[in-house]
């Protein structure tokens, strides 16, 4: 297989969210003048990728459709270009960095590591940003949910013991301290077991 260094690489990014897809494409464009194609729809994914015949496929590690790409790693005819996960031939630290950042890359067999590296590096940086955003969003959501559960537990205590809101909260906090738990955990167990009595 002869690989020309002068031509641009063809990259497919599998990403259903259009905003994220745009950000990834921008980052990859900065890594060189590559031909980047976004596939947003998960239906017919395998066929869509085969048609483009890319050098590299990038996909979020949390995307269930990653399993579809495994199909591409099984070359069934000598004319098909085998696609391997890039970790087969790249250094281990890059692999770990990529997977920890949440990006999976499939690379055509025989691709030179120095050509892949800048692309993977750019993808890693972008995915790290997404991951941070996701973690923050989850923390916010969790805080909101906890708030709601604590409010429900407070309401239940106020009704059952005929006390004011402040006293109900103080009781929750005291119980949490006694049990070495968080207020939200005590509230959660109260709310979930109270269903038994209703």
């Amino acid at each position: 297989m002869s690989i020309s260094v002068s031509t641009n690489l063809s990259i497919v990014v599998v990403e259903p969210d259009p905003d994220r897809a745009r950000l990834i494409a921008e980052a990859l464009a900065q890594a060189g003048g590559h031909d980047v194609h976004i596939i947003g729809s998960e239906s017919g994914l395998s066929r869509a990728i085969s048609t483009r015949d890319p050098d590299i496929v990038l996909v979020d590690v949390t995307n269930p459709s990653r399993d579809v790409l495994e199909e591409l790693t099984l070359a069934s005819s000598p004319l098909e270009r085998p696609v391997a996960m890039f970790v087969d031939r790249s250094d281990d630290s890059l692999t770990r960095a990529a997977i920890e950042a949440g990006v999976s890359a499939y690379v055509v067999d025989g691709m030179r590591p120095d050509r892949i590296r800048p692309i993977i590096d750019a993808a890693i940086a972008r995915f790290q940003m997404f991951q941070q955003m996701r973690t923050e969003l989850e923390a916010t959501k969790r805080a909101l949910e906890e708030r709601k559960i604590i409010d429900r537990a407070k309401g239940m205590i106020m009704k059952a013991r005929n006390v004011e809101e402040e006293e109900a909260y103080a009781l929750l906090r005291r119980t949490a301290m006694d049990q070495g738990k968080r207020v939200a955990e005590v509230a959660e167990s109260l709310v979930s077991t109270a269903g038994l009595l209703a």
Partner: protein
Amino acid sequence: MSLTSLRAGFIPLIDCAPFAIAHEIGFAEEEGLALELSSAPSWSALRDQLALGHVDAAHMLAPVPVAVALGLGGMPARFDALSVMSINGNVIGVSKALGQRMAEAGHDFGFDNAEAAGRALLQAVQGRLRIGVPFPFSMHAELVYHWLGALGLPSPQGLDVRTVPPPQMAVALAKGEIDAFCVGEPWGSIAVEGGHGALLLPGSAIWAGAPEKVLAVRHDWAQEHQDLAKRLIRAIWRAQRWLGQAENLSTASEILARRAYLDMSADIIERALTGHLIVTPEGTRRAAPGFLRFYDGAAGFPWRSQALWIADRLAARTGLPRAQAAQAARAVFRSDLYREALTTTRADLPGASEKVEGANLAPRPVASQQGTLVLQPDAFFDGAIFDPASLK
């Protein structure tokens, strides 16, 4: 007692139950283990998490550790299957249009006859059959190739087997991207609930004793942490024994229904656990004995012959030399470690570590340590026999 933490990954499916039960009912704790369970988004992601040490144990498709040993898919690694987590549990389903044509041609959707169902399917399908499976290296794919291959369809060429993640299976059927599927529960029942198709067969009608999921770890990890590995084997064995008792299945359904596991109605989960399925959107009920087994007949025993059967099938399809594939696969299923782990329990284990796959048409008593072991049926619908001795 301080517990040893152990990170374990699973895919949200009914057959992840041994992990969930070991954790929730306290069998892991009994062995001094604190299981930190995390659900994975895909089989390839879970396989990579295990290879890279993000988890130490995984609920894994039985063919994956064998495929890895043969160098098929993913990064270079070496996995051991410490035990078989479940036997059977898959369903074959067809689209509404295809099901209708089959019914019009006189098929009764009896849910028990793989030959009749297969012939009706091949007759009703227009063009090349497109069938979805969750992963290229899976018992789902093997069952489909064996079933339709035995009925004369040249496989793999005669078939268009496509990878579709289980939660997308019903949608792919509804959109007409596939004509049929083979998938683990609850995803077949979800397709029926949504009115997108009907269930044609349980996987057990094709092969009555198919090793479905295994308890997979890195080979190096098992060697370095033999004591931990054995404690894990025992915890899972006790969870499987608990799951083997019918009176526990409602509780198991409730546990699996929780958000940390399947996050869906316990009613749907209970169907697969009890083997009483609803096979059409109109509500037709069918019973499938042995639909999903965790315990009876030493279900957890990792037979070397199971690894060899899988390796032989993968080798035949990918063009690898059969003898070499057998050599690489034999040691993947750790019947040796499984025996050592369970000597302190009351488990009755088989005397042999290989069996002729497909030979048991009915429950059959076999030589075992305590002389009480009765193996469950493991016949193929077409009477196929796999003798591991033929590979030597």
